[in-house]
């Protein structure tokens, strides 16, 4: 069986996001593998360690820098990687066409990816890909087991969580709580350098962006920054309650 694990390269959460003109400019920004996708890479490795006979393939669609994230995945233990290199910004509906095409040509039966992208804040790729392939989907998974083709686990829903049962093929989105992703060890980093990282051509998938990006802005809300010294707790508390009641008028 083949498992695809999708990864993207996003700004480090602590990095400052800046604009140039009216688009986000990542030049000079530290980029890392999206933490949400990392849970997916780890999940694939653990399914195999738990007995699933699987070849695990890391996939990234995006600029050249995505290679670093793919190398990290290889060093974590993924078998090989496919990089569809492009500077074009593909929305989830368009990107799902690429991923579905690759899943078909590889004959994959399980696709793992993060529940929400840390750059475009999108949750749509998993569902769109599942629809194109006609597969089941499970989102926000925090427990996952594979027994033959039976997939079981737990996931979060609107008002709590559910235990589920389904069968491969499926698309599963991952999140915090599913596992603790491993750190690549030095020997594995060395080994990863010899693993296959295949470049693939976006043009073969016939995917065109379905959205037009008009502009981006960083709206920083001006905050009052009124900080009270708490040395005298009673006085500080009374002052704060007074401000909230009579100045901000947010409490009664």
């Amino acid at each position, binding site marked *: 069986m083949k498992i695809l694990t999708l990864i993207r390269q996003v*700004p480090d*959460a*602590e990095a400052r*996001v800046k*604009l140039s003109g009216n688009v*986000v400019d990542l030049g000079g920004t530290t980029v890392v593998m999206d933490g949400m996708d990392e849970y997916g890479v780890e999940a694939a490795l653990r399914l195999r360690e738990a007995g699933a006979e699987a070849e695990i393939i890391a996939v990234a669609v995006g600029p050249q820098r995505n290679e670093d994230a793919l190398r990290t995945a290889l060093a974590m233990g993924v078998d090989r990687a496919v990089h569809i290199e492009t500077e074009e910004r593909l*929305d*989830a*509906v368009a990107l*799902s066409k690429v991923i579905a095409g690759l899943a078909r040509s590889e004959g994959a039966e399980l696709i793992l990816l993060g529940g929400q992208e840390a*750059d*475009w*804040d999108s949750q*749509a790729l998993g*569902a769109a890909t599942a*629809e194109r392939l006609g597969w*089941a*989907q*499970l*989102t926000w998974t925090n427990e996952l087991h594979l027994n033959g083709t039976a997939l079981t686990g737990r996931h*979060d*829903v*609107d*008002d*709590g*969580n*559910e235990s589920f*049962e*389904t*069968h491969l093929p499926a698309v599963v989105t991952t999140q*915090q709580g599913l596992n603790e992703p491993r750190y690549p060890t030095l020997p594995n980093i060395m080994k990863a350098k010899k693993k296959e990282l295949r470049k693939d051509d976006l043009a073969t998938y016939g995917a065109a962006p*379905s*959205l*037009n*990006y*008009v*502009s*981006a*802005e*960083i*709206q920083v*809300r001006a*905050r*009052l*920054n*009124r*900080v*009270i*010294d*708490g040395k005298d707790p*009673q006085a*500080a*508390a009374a002052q*704060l*309650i007074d401000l*909230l009641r009579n100045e*901000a008028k*947010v*409490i*009664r």
Partner: protein
Amino acid sequence: MILVVAEHTGGKLAKASLEMVSAARSSGREGPITLLVLGHGVAGVAAEAAAVADQVLVADLSELATYDAELWAAATAQIARAGEAHTVITPGSRSGREYAPRVAVKLDAPYLEDAISLSAHGDALRAQRYTYLSRVTETVEASGPVVVVSAKPGAFAPAAPLGAPGEQYDIDLDLPERRVTITGRSVEKSSRVALSEADIIVTGGRGVGNAENFARLIEPLADNLGAGVGATRAVVDAGWRPYAEQVGQTGKTVQPGAYIALGVSGAVQHLSGMGKSKYIVAINKDAEAPIFKVADYGIVGDVSEIVPALIEASRR
């Protein structure tokens, strides 16, 4: 027509449905606003829906007794096609954002996700949405015969009722088999106001110390203020509070009138879920904690000293 897929729980129309109707009205797109009610035993929901929509389509079917992404997507796409909808709006809830992309693929339509505003630009529909963990606001445009949108919860004001209720029509659907079986379900109930509905939220972070302190400090303060209770991921991971209370990138996104963060450092992933609150209040013993940068009011001090004084001062 504009097709809006109603959200409902416990036999009641959710606030999100009124927000979506308001999104539809603000979109500048023409045609009747049609609310689609999917479920079983939803007559009450349909009647509530009729108060705000031009028409209501009700699929009251036993197969739809519980939510399933594939069924919801199939139903929505069928009705969108049959009614030649040019705009389909789903909730921006977890489930809404799970089936909306499937609807978009089925209809070969572009998808505007988690929109905070909508406007017509010629034939195109424009949306604003947050990106980069809510730090950037982007404007995105979609065109074509049909566009799918999910509306961010809390971003649109709930729609006011129409003078005369809309007509209700029962519909039948051709639905696929379920592929996912739900074998267990646990609903995290809180006795307090739901985070999505709360005007005030009191959130505790790791600085609160332990679960007992949460009960001793955070809960009474929340009760005095009539507030909802929130938590950081650090607190949820430590098992002090349920995941339902987590605010942030992987938890809930909230936008209350006042967000009171106690012993919370203000990590980007947390700010992503509450940074748009009207007023932010922080109490932290570290004057350099990042949360103070986004705070309107703050106290530098120990929560175990300040919060009891706040509980006292907020008692009326």
